[in-house]
């Protein structure tokens, strides 16, 4: 038996470019990017920050806790802030990326509907 979706959203709900949802304890972030629809877990992979409360655009997602920036289409971490550290002895003072990525949620698009699965 196939797994039922945990959430469904019409494509029309993505008019502003993204759609946010809380389903039970799950946090879901749906973004219309230049490369198509992406569905990400709303828990920041850095220190569990609330991405749904961050700045979200078709290009990037910024966590409100530590200002880590993730690419909307790939989920990869683009930059970390780092400016607080003494530049001379820390490469992260230059805002290098960290090997982190947003967690994708499995989804499929059927007609006008995005079906999102919990795994």
């Amino acid at each position, binding site marked *: 038996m196939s797994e039922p979706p945990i959430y469904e959203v019409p494509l029309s709900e993505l008019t502003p470019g993204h759609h946010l949802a809380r389903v039970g304890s799950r946090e879901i972030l749906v973004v219309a990017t230049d490369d198509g629809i992406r569905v990400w877990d709303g828990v920041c992979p850095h220190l569990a920050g609330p991405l749904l409360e961050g700045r979200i655009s078709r290009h990037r997602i910024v966590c409100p806790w530590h200002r880590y920036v993730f690419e909307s289409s790939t989920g990869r971490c683009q930059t970390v802030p780092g400016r*607080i*550290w003494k530049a001379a002895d820390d490469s992260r003072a230059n805002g290098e990326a960290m090997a982190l990525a947003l967690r994708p949620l499995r989804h499929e698009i059927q007609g006008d509907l995005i079906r999102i699965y919990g795994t």
Partner: protein
Amino acid sequence: MKHSFTLVKRIAASRSNVIANYLDLEHLPVHSGLSDLRVMSETDRAACFEMTTKVGPFRVKNVHYFEFRPPHQIFHAIKSPLGPMYVLSTVEELDSATPQVRSEVTVLTTLDLPRFAYPARFLIEKLLRRLNEKVLREDRAILDRRQALVGDSVEDYLRDQQRILFKDLFRRHYAANRGGERGAREIG
């Protein structure tokens, strides 16, 4: 001329998460009253940084000395325009059946004020208490969420690329293979 006061904060998070929150300087953007943080030097258990703090209507740039006294104390000395301020925070894990009071933080603040400012000591205390409550409210958002999502685990703070103050010392006391914060003991 010295003036001291104590704050007691009860928090629904484990001691390990409360200490990690103190050492995680990168969460500063969460706090609207704090800005322009810049770490100037660091040793294994002490750091010196500058930061701008909004106290009431005033924005004050201070130099801070920040020291981790494992397993459960943070000593903080601040050089401010109104003289030095010393803050000792002690985090205790409570054996409470109520999840809302997992930890208790006792913050003992001592102001060493110049004579001209001493008559305003209670006003200064009031402004500092207000700032402290605001910072705590903002930190609670982090602590409550982390406690709900990752429980007592602080392993994400210990990743190779993660930058927190005094990470090695924190790891020695709070990493999972040390038995977590209940196993924390004075080894530093």
